[in-house]
């Protein structure tokens, strides 16, 4: 088993990069957030490197002796992480650009809808438009409900016609003549 005791230099680099990364991550400018993500990613990569143990030769068979190789597994993990960070950088940059295009700045604003929810909650208003306004009684509602019934409804235009129901409507013969308009 290779020597796994950590090297302080790498640990300090990881800690410092994490601190800077977190500081930037908590900013509002997307560019700075993105820099924070990059630093954090580098920091995590270094931590992974530390977890592989001491430094050694390049993990290439016949080039380095097997006993003095550095651990190849964390390296494979880090390699994919580096490239993923590139993808993430590009994506966040595109977002920053889009934000600039729309708002003329790249800052992450507070979600206005969330704020509205909070304000409504503070005023104890209904959070959404409810079907139940609590003003009608059962009897009133029942009096308005009628089915679409009967043979004497509007002239049957055959099956499959689109629904013609207006709220509360039922088949009432339209008054003949006169002021139909």
């Amino acid at each position, binding site marked *: 088993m290779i020597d*796994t*005791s*950590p*090297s302080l*230099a*790498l640990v300090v680099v990881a*800690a410092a*990069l994490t*601190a800077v*990364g*977190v*500081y930037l991550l*908590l900013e509002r400018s997307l560019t700075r957030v993105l820099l924070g993500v990059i*630093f954090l990613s*580098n920091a995590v990569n270094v931590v992974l490197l530390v977890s*592989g143990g*001491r*430094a*050694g030769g390049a*993990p*290439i068979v016949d080039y*380095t002796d097997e006993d003095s190789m*550095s*651990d*190849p*597994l964390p*390296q494979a993990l*880090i*390699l*994919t992480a580096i*490239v*993923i960070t*590139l*993808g993430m950088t*590009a*994506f966040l*940059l*595109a*977002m*920053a*650009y889009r934000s600039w295009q729309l708002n003329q700045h790249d800052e992450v604003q*507070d*979600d206005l809808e*969330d704020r509205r929810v*909070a304000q409504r909650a503070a005023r104890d208003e209904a*959070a959404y438009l409810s*079907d139940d306004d*609590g003003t009608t009684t059962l*009897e009133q509602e029942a*009096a308005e*409900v*009628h*089915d679409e019934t*009967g*043979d004497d409804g*509007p002239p049957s235009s055959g*099956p*499959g016609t689109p*629904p013609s129901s207006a709220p509360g409507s*039922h088949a009432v013969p339209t008054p003949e003549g006169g002021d139909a308009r």
Partner: protein
Amino acid sequence: MLLLLAVHLAMALAAPVLVSRLGRRAFFVLALAPASAAVWALSQTRAVLDGDGPTEVVAWVPALSIELAFRLDTLGWLMTLLVGGVGALVLVYCAAYFSASAGGLGRFGGVLVAFAGAMLGLVTTDDLLLLYVFWELTTVFSYLLIGHYSDRKASRRAAMQAIILTTFGGLAMLVGLVLLGEAGGSYRVSDVLADPPTGAVASVAVVLLLLGALSKSALVPLHFWLPAAMAAPTPVSAYLHAAAMVKAGVYLVARFAPAFADLPVWKAVVAVAGTWTLVHGGYRALRQYDLKLVLAFGTVSQLGLLVLLVGLPGRATALAGLAMLGAHAMFKASLFLVVGIVDAATGTRDLRRLTGVGRALPLTATAGALATLSMIGMFPFAGFVAKEAALEALLAEATTPSGLLVVVGMVVGSALTVAYGLRFWWGAFADKRLPATDDDGAPVEPPHVSRPSLVLVAPAAVLAVLGLVTGLLPGLGETLLAPHAAGYAGEEGHLVLWAGFKPAFWLTVLVLAAGAAMFAARAWVERAQSRVSVPLDADRAYRRLMRRLDDAAADVTALTQRGSLPFYLGVILLAMVALQTVALTRTGLPGPDEVRLYDRPAQLVVGGLAVAGAVLAANARRRLKAVVLAGVSGYGVAALFMLHGAPDLALTQVLVETVTLVVFVLVLRRLPAYFSVRPLAASRWLRMAIGVASGLVVGALALVVPTARVHPPVSEDFPEEAYVFGGGRNIVNVTLVDIRAWDTTGEIAVLLVAATGVASLIFLSTRSGSIFRSSSARGSGYVWDSVPQPAVIRRLTVDARAQHAAGTLSPGRNREWLGAGSTLAPQRRSVVFEIITRLLFHSMVVVGLYLLFAGHNSPGGGFAGGLVVGIALIVRYLAGGRYELGDAAPVHPGLLLGLGLFLSAGVGLVAVLAGGSLLQSVIIEFAVPVLGPIKLVTSVFFDIGVFLLVLGVVLDVLRSLGAEIDRHSEEAAPDSADPEVRGTERVSAGAREGQDPGAGAGTRGRGTSMSEPIDGSLSGRGTGEGGGR
């Protein structure tokens, strides 16, 4: 029984098609489904009587011991008859009830048949969990049926209320069912009933079961959804809210009563809820004016009676209860159908507006009368037989005060039933004097009554007459129903027409007399009722509760969902710090035995560089400065990798940093040069504190975790595995393309998604548009033309254009390489850069390909190769503009991305086809004459896939963040399109930028007022971000 269910399902699915073909006649066809169930039940009568009704068991989910188990016994037989028979009649009724042009009939018919099927399954299943499934299916279908008129507020509200209440009960019931199943050791209903569990578990389980039954059968205090559900079309009310769904609760009680009726808690719940509901429903029914509401509250009352009868222990009451169950289904469904006829014929259901309907519709009035007589328990109808038997049985049990109270409740409730029953018929059909004006002051006129079709009257009449016929044959009823009652303990009961002058008879006379008196004094009763105000209305309490629930939810949302990204991230990070601190200090991990200061002294230097770059970047106010410093830090980390013995990492990191830097600059040219000033000192200190805390925790983890390892690392065997199985010497690369190829596949898929996301954020309409090639650049303006053009260059431009046009008119061997350079604004071209590009581009491509193919044995691989070729493309883009990029890579990035992923994953599939495992490598060795022996490992194709994909990502990013943003900025400044005008107007914008570096990007394109040609105004170049443009 599965076959019957399948018939219902098929019919439900076919309903929309049938209705669109046949119109409302389709309901006759749909009626066949429930009718078949009723016929089947009739055909099984003999077997059921003998106690060996059909059973059917099909395994469904063995792991949960859920079986499709069905069994038909007496109770199930009765319910199947009701569900199927009434269902068929109601569907026939629908064919004439709805107008031919009514909307949504196909959906309505389908859901109604599906409901009949669910109900059939519910009453015949022998599996506890299946029972729950059918139970909830009826809930869902009833929701759809109540909300049939989804454009009406009342319908939506009623449907919502019904589903919330019944689902609440259903969930409680599920817990009860599981408790029963687990305690009894079997989920078969017949097993549980044969050997019921006892003790506290049984008590809890039955209370939960009863909660389900109370909610479904609309018992107090969960009764109020049923009257509101009258917003449904009347056939639905007749079927669901009289015969079928609300009976599901009664069915549940009747099903489990033989096993649990002796539990004190069961008796208490049934007696209290039943009696209360019986009286309350009758009382409320008496003061309704809407005929449907009269019936709805009447149903609530009768459901209370039914639960009381089938739920209380006692064989005689159970028999009476079953008889009442059948009688109620017949008369109540019939009455609802009658109300539908009256409503359709007159256009109103308000009994204050109806008069003379009985004379106009004699058949309907007769059917209504027969059903009403059965309801109020008049001799010799089914209702009378059932009520007599019930009174007799209850009187026999009335030895305790509580028993006596139940009898009193039954008498009062029945008297109320008589009163509201008479009032109902009188209100619907009698001739009466109408009030001159209604509540709103509008004049009231006698309704115009149209003649209903016979199809409409027949179902109601059939049910009403059946109520009379079954009443005349009480002995047959007793024979058929007794087997279920036999499951209860106690004295045997009887169903008879005439039992002699016993106490029960006198009670019936009393009930009828009291009811008739209340009806006669109806004006006085109405006044008395309107004077009593109800302090606690269940409906209002429910609404208030729901409102409170919404408020609470809104408060919680307001508290947790702050909408601030830094707040969320801060909380997450603080949680990480706190949890990891606990983990580090409390779990007793051994600290590191020894700490090396460094592996190699140079680490200190490059590590310091990385940290210093990061700190300075965090401090920078200029974007470009911050980005460049971040790049320095990244290169430092690359050097750390190199020193650690990871050349692949160092190579990739350097390449990625380079691409990142270029991409950053491409975007930053459009963003303001400086970060905005945020003078919130307090929050800055807080951010810093969180940062430092996170850093310390990560550092501590990095110190402690590596030494906590107790097993040898898996990578110990990697060198051998890589060489023998993977066929390569570079272990890291073999790990990527072979040992952990699955990981890599997922990772490049993520890259693909990210690149697609970038493209979709920048290409707003379509990304697959044409590629900018230099041949398509004719006539458009210059690229990168935002900086003003000195007059000297402008003169040269005309010549260059002419030259360029001549050159491309005769494309051929002498075509200029890097020809798109002429599409650049002349002041943007750099001779040195173009020459270097010509020198470097091909070498870089070769190096990239070398890295790709050599990567298996020495540092390199698909990632590095792809990045190098990508950088070569970047160089060409920077030298020649977006048209040059199109010339250099005239393919859509999507193609490269897709091809890359396909190749990588496809190679893995080939290995499967060849009989290996997914993504396994195959080594093929062969000799080529000149080159000597060649070892071909199939994973090289995987690496080629990675290469193509990475190349695609870079190209996509370049096309989006480079070329497309170029186009955006040219569109934002359209006056630059014409070289002749440009010289005058663009200057003004440039001058503005020069004066105002902080807001340079924002003002571009607005300053068009100044029109004097200011020649040689080069101040625009001096601005910070100008260099990249």
